């Protein structure tokens, strides 16, 4: 299976810069997710890998072969589309056989390959149905079978699960991941769902406005985001942010301040801020799970008032209003804990889980 290397890839549609100079690498057999909001260029990138779109500039390499001018059919690429793109007038069998027919394979070969893949994907009882006569989940499997039957070296997924209901999506997520691991096909998976990217991919490229903002393992992009964009895009609910903080040294200790709020930083963190050289307009970030709620002041933290509760069964999301902070702070808590709306509570912050960003450039300081 090839390694994919993309170098300074650009795609402009007239004046619209859909993809604006991205570079990344997908290792042999790796599963990479392209994640971002709609219109960020991730699907355009996928279509360039497939050969449907021609890049405006830049290079696409499969191993040591430059693919820019290679037509789609010679790229050895299988693709699963958002709406499955199953031909409505053909049966499931004919749909899956289509790529093999296009290759000019003989009838017996086609038959045995279709039977094999449909057996594997548990759709061999649907072969004579039309796509309109099977369920969404089954259509998804047929689309997968059609992409896999021609034994591609690269698999491309364009938001393949977004048309399924939540329950089925969770199920297919695991199945696709397992299938990809078993087959070891180099895969690129486009999604706008951060949970899908986190759970399935070994690395995630986070897109915004035609550029890759960060490329790393799920752990890296979640725990060490390089910008406010990544920090707030990953995680549900996203990272809490407090804007407009000032950095000061009080009795030798580094502190972030905003009105009554004062959050202590560690020596290492204080040095980082000083090295960065900015003391105003800083943004403090912390994830909802990196906070513990107490009734009295304990250690490093912020006082607030419970605004509204969102029980999730296993967890409880506590929305906290903090004086002087515009946005609500969301905190995960234990549902057995006695918290009521209007309670005054202390949010104790895990010192090592704090993030600070530059409020202007939105890049991470630490």
């Amino acid at each position, binding site marked *: 299976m090839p390694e994919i290397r993309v170098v300074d890839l650009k795609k402009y549609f007239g004046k619209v810069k859909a993809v604006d100079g991205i570079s990344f690498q997908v290792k042999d057999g790796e599963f990479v997710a392209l994640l971002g909001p709609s219109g960020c260029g991730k699907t355009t990138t996928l*279509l360039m890998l*497939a*050969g*449907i779109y021609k890049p405006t500039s830049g290079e696409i390499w499969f191993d040591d072969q430059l693919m820019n001018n290679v037509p*789609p*059919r*010679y*790229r050895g*690429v*299988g*693709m699963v*589309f*958002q*709406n499955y*793109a199953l*031909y*409505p*007038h*053909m049966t499931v069998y004919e749909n899956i056989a*289509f*790529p093999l*027919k*296009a*290759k000019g394979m003989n009838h017996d070969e086609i038959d045995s390959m279709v039977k094999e893949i449909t057996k594997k994907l548990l759709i061999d009882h649907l072969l004579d149905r*039309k796509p*309109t*006569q*099977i*369920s969404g*989940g*089954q259509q998804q499997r047929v689309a997968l079978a*059609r992409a896999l039957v*021609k034994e591609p070296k690269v698999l491309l997924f364009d938001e393949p699960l977004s048309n399924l209901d939540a329950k089925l999506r969770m199920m297919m997520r695991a199945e696709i991941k397992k299938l990809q691991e078993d087959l070891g096909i180099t895969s690129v998976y486009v999604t706008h769902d951060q949970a899908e990217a986190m759970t399935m991919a070994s690395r995630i490229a986070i897109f915004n406005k035609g550029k890759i903002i960060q490329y790393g393992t799920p752990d890296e992009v979640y725990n060490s985001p390089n910008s406010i964009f990544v920090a707030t895009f990953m995680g549900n609910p996203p990272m809490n942010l407090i804007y407009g903080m000032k950095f000061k040294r009080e009795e030798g200790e580094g502190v972030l301040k905003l009105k009554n709020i004062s959050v202590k930083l560690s020596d290492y963190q204080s040095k980082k801020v000083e090295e960065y050289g900015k003391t105003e307009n800083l943004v403090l970030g912390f994830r909802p799970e990196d906070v513990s709620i107490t009734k009295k002041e304990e250690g490093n933290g912020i006082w607030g008032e419970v605004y509204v509760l969102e029980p999730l069964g296993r967890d409880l999301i506590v929305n906290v209003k903090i004086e002087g902070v515009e946005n609500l702070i969301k905190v995960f808590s234990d549902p057995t804990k006695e918290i009521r709306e209007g309670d005054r509570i202390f949010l104790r912050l895990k010192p090592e889980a704090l993030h600070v960003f530059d409020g202007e450039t939105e890049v991470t300081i630490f």
Partner: protein
Amino acid sequence: MKKTAWIFLSPMLVMVTIFFFIPVILTIVLSFTDMDYQFQWNFVGFSNFKDIATDFIIPKVTTNTLIYTFTTLGLFNVGSALLISLLTTSIPDKWGGFFRTLWMLPRLTPSVVYGLLWLWIFDPTEHGLLNFMRMSMGLPPQNWLYRAPMFIVVVANGFIGASMGMLIFTAAIKAIPIDYYRAALLDGASWWMITRKITLPLIKWQVLFVTAYQTLSLLTSFEYILIITDGGPVFRTEVWSLYTYHMAFSNYRFGYGAALSVVLVIMGIIFAIAYLRLFKFEALMQKPKVEVD
């Protein structure tokens, strides 16, 4: 609400009754009379229909009608329309739109002007466009309207008739989800395979509609033939509808003309039913059986 709807619909109902249903009934009744310029309702039973069966012009008119209808249909109204739609949707839309606009121009021209244009192109004297071109190459002028009248009639009608099919087919092709084509391209399907296996099956319903509609329209329309050849020379382009017109309004045999038009309507109905069979209309309309798991 129901009452209001009926009030709004009723004027049209009256119009349709006066201008469609009554004339249809009158025509059928008329076809059993030998009414002429004296406008007498003399009922003569089936004698008009017997006359049609023995009219020595009828075999020629029938052949002409079939040749005219199906050549125009095959070469232009469905054939060219399909080809133009397939080709113009395969190139960038800017150019596709340009070529489609060109094919719309005849439709935008008033029919008499359009007919006269063809008369000028095929004019037998040196002033005709084709003859002018021939003579500038040193060839003698030709009497085109005598040499190939049916061809001229078919071409003149076809250039106008292709536009409707073109519009419908193009719209249908553009409505096909683009991912079908992307998937096929990735699979290495050729343009021909994509056209045959994906595009054509998915616009089958529109092809059926245009074929049926244009057959009926070609069977009954004769204005361009009237302007260009008037059925001549010597009945060589006399089609059924034009013959009906000539019988009724040149020879004032209203009863016979009515009988001819009744037969034409029956022919149209037979063709329509044949198309529905041919395209397996019922299968096209079948409801999906979705199974939810």
